[in-house]
């Protein structure tokens, strides 16, 4: 019973995603799934560890370019490509992590952005001979057809992305419930006390950093396969705000915030750019509004209401059960 | 209108989720020296902070001569002549002693430094020294000197003698006695001989609650207060 309850939230959330797939066009569905995987790392860093990162595009690009290099120069299997993307994410975040997690949260945000800029220029100019600069790496014709699930086709890609997202959410839910998750929260609230308990603050932060940014790199790898084109645009500083905006919009530190935020953000972006044309204006001021209105975001505000509603449902159920028990006796 | 210079009724205060003060009530009349004693963590500093406007009480009233203080900003309360001298002995270390005093003057509109320098002649020779180079006792002098510009009607002093040499403690004791001729004082103090020597009334706090109020001069003795520490 408790096992089922652990899964119930996840199952409902992903059930709703399947419904979206039925009603909305495929590219939109693919976009929101990848985007929400992209955002969950940022959400975890901000909500659980208290680190705000304006440099998530850096790790996104690491994953994407890892995948792209493999597919362009070495082999054709997109699954292997994604694996290469994930591994490059682990390697890069494990390399920069030890330096970054020592920093105070404000410097952390700035330094990550700097990394994004470095990677942007690296891919655009310095390594232009292998990345083809702004033209990017064209991958569509490089991918082999894979048996069972051919992820070079958008509709089958969705199935793969859906299953991966489910896996990612199950992982983060597990992390939230684990000792590690508790330690992260503790590190956010009071570093000293955590140290007194015998946990290494540094180690926990590093671990969270690597996990979160590897997830982001995974999203990058998915982007590479999905779009079939990887260009430096991905880590452009102009887009550094996107994951932070969606994190806040969805609700910081909530499990389903990134999903809700991505749906709202991608949907809004599509709608606004069609109708009005200046989506930044709306997104920017929406962000300010959400922050001033209590910073809980869409899901952050809905969740307590929903929880209360479910509790009330249970309570109205309960007396009936209790009565039945009495009567039976 | 009440003639109490400070009247606190049923004050509750908290830092976030953790409650620190429970229904504390105190009263201070003009030119009265009130001591506040208690163990570390009893809520003495929190009491002063809530009065001075640095912490918004969760419940209760704080009034001065009938004027409500709750909800006012700290600078407005200071502007009413209720000055708070915190425990941390932090002067503006990048500024000179002169500049520190200038800020006190700017805030209160009182540019007459003679009374301050009369209380603390030592500051006169230190005027152009950076406050960061002062000793603990000199810092305390500067903080009190800064606060008494503008002739406040009530001084809230948090552990002024903590960590200071006995000679300076005696000096401060004289200064407080002198100050009480023109202002009321609330002094949080662990040094019982010092506070009992000047106080007209002593409140004892324990775990956020008021546990004793001593008004009888016979009772204001270190031996009586000892159990509350």
């Amino acid at each position, binding site marked *: 019973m408790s096992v089922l309850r652990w899964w119930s939230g996840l199952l409902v959330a992903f059930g709703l995603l399947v419904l979206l797939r039925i009603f909305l066009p495929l590219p939109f569905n693919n976009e929101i799934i990848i985007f929400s995987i992209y955002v969950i790392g940022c959400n975890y860093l*901000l909500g659980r560890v208290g680190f*705000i990162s*304006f440099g998530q595009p850096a790790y996104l690009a690491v994953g994407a370019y890892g995948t792209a290099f493999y597919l362009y120069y070495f082999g054709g299997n997109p699954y292997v490509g994604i694996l290469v993307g994930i591994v490059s994410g682990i390697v890069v975040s494990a390399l920069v992590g030890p*330096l970054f997690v*020592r*920093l*105070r949260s*404000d*410097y952390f*945000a*700035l*330094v990550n*952005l*700097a*990394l994004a*800029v*470095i990677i942007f*220029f*690296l891919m655009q*100019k*310095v390594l232009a001979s292998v990345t083809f600069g702004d033209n990017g790496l064209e991958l569509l014709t490089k991918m082999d057809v894979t048996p069972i699930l051919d992820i070079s086709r958008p509709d089958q890609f969705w199935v793969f992305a859906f299953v991966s997202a489910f896996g990612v959410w199950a992982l983060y839910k597990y992390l939230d419930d684990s000792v590690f998750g508790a330690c992260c929260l503790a590190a956010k609230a009071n570093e000293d006390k955590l140290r007194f308990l015998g946990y290494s603050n540094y180690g926990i932060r590093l671990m969270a950093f690597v996990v979160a940014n590897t997830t982001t790199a995974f999203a990058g790898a998915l982007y590479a396969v999905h779009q079939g084109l990887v260009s430096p645009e991905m880590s452009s*500083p*102009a887009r550094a*705000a996107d994951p*932070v*905006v969606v994190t*806040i919009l969805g609700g910081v530190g909530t499990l389903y915030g990134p999903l809700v935020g991505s749906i709202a953000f991608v949907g809004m972006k599509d709608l606004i750019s069609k109708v009005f044309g*200046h989506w*930044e*204006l*709306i*997104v*920017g*001021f929406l*962000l*300010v509004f959400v*922050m*001033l209105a209590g*910073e809980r975001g869409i899901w952050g505000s809905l969740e307590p209401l929903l929880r209360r509603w479910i509790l009330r449902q249970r309570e109205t159920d309960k007396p009936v059960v209790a009565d039945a028990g009495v009567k039976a006796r | 209108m009440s003639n109490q210079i400070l009247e606190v009724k049923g004050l509750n205060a908290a830092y976030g989720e953790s409650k620190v003060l429970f229904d504390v009530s105190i009263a201070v009349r003009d030119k009265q020296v009130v001591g506040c004693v208690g163990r570390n963590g009893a809520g003495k500093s929190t009491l002063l902070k809530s009065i001075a406007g*640095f912490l918004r009480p969760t419940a209760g009233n704080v009034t001065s001569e009938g004027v409500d203080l709750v909800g006012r*900003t*700290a*600078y407005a309360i*200071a*502007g009413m002549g209720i*000055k708070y001298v*915190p425990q941390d002995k*932090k002067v*503006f270390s*990048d*500024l000179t002693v002169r*500049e*520190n005093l200038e*800020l*006190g003057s*700017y*805030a*209160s509109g009182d540019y007459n430094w003679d009374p301050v320098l009369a209380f603390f002649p030592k500051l006169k020779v230190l005027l152009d020294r950076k406050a960061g180079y002062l000793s603990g006792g000199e810092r305390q002098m500067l903080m009190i000197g*800064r606060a008494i510009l*503008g002739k406040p009607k009530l001084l809230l002093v948090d552990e002024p003698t903590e960590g200071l040499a006995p000679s300076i403690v005696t000096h401060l004791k004289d200064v407080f006695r002198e100050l009480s001729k023109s202002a009321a004082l609330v002094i949080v103090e662990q040094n019982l001989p010092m506070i009992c020597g000047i106080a007209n009334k002593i409140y004892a706090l324990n775990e956020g609650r008021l546990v004793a109020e001593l008004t009888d001069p016979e009772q204001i003795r270190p031996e009586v207060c000892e159990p509350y520490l």
Partner: protein
Amino acid sequence: MIDPQLLLSGVIFGLSMGSVFFLMTVGLSLCFGLMRIISLDQLLYYSVGAYLTYSVSLAVGNVWIGALAGVAVAGATALFVERFVFLRIYARDITFSMITSFGILIGGIGVIKVIWGLVPRPVPVPIEAQWNILGTDVPVYRLAVVVLALLVYAGIWLFLNKTIIGKAIRAGIEDVEHVEGLGINVYRLFTLTFVIAGALSGLAGGLHAPLIMVFPDMGLEVLAFAFMVVIIGGLGSIKGTFISAFLVGQVVSIGSLIYAPLAQMAPFAIMLLILLIKPTGLYGSAMLKR
């Protein structure tokens, strides 16, 4: 070896870049020092300053008047934002201000796009003259920008050290609660500091405009450099910001002479190196109160 003439014009170019960086980031640094906020929206006031310079100089025919209008409108915008947004969030965590100000920056860029469109706009150089220094033609306008930045630095120094308000700001950078405890209305200090910061960012935009094209994303383009300058200098230190702005300006300029792509990346490498040695930048304070 680099041609000495090229090197000289490179140094001048670097100095003028450094001047713009300094004007752009000194406000950010001051705001962090006093209010403990990270005000990314300073880069919006930079863009506002540049666009006003463009529009007014087009109408009046004088770039200096345009830049002055830019300073005024940037300051006014900053005042508006401070009253309506920052006043509500001073007490909050520092990440809070970072996110909110990023929202203001993005939203403000949207407004700029609505008003001025997406097309880059040219602003004429107000001083066309070139001086011949050691056989190299040096544009006088770039030197004027450097002189103005030095004047601003001197002005800030005098303001902070010689006026009572400036002293109160310095005291507030150390401990704002104690300043409030003396009876000084610190929120008025906050507003003043924020408006000064916004106006200086506007000045940076106005002075930078004739050297580049004015375009909507110009604030985002320099955002990374602004970050870098304040990180290397240390948040909250005027002196550190000053030194690091000119350091970054030179690295960008000289670096591009050696190997063009290096110009963009070298400062970041330096920044990472400095953080590795001293995690709070050159002159940053170790403590973060509140």
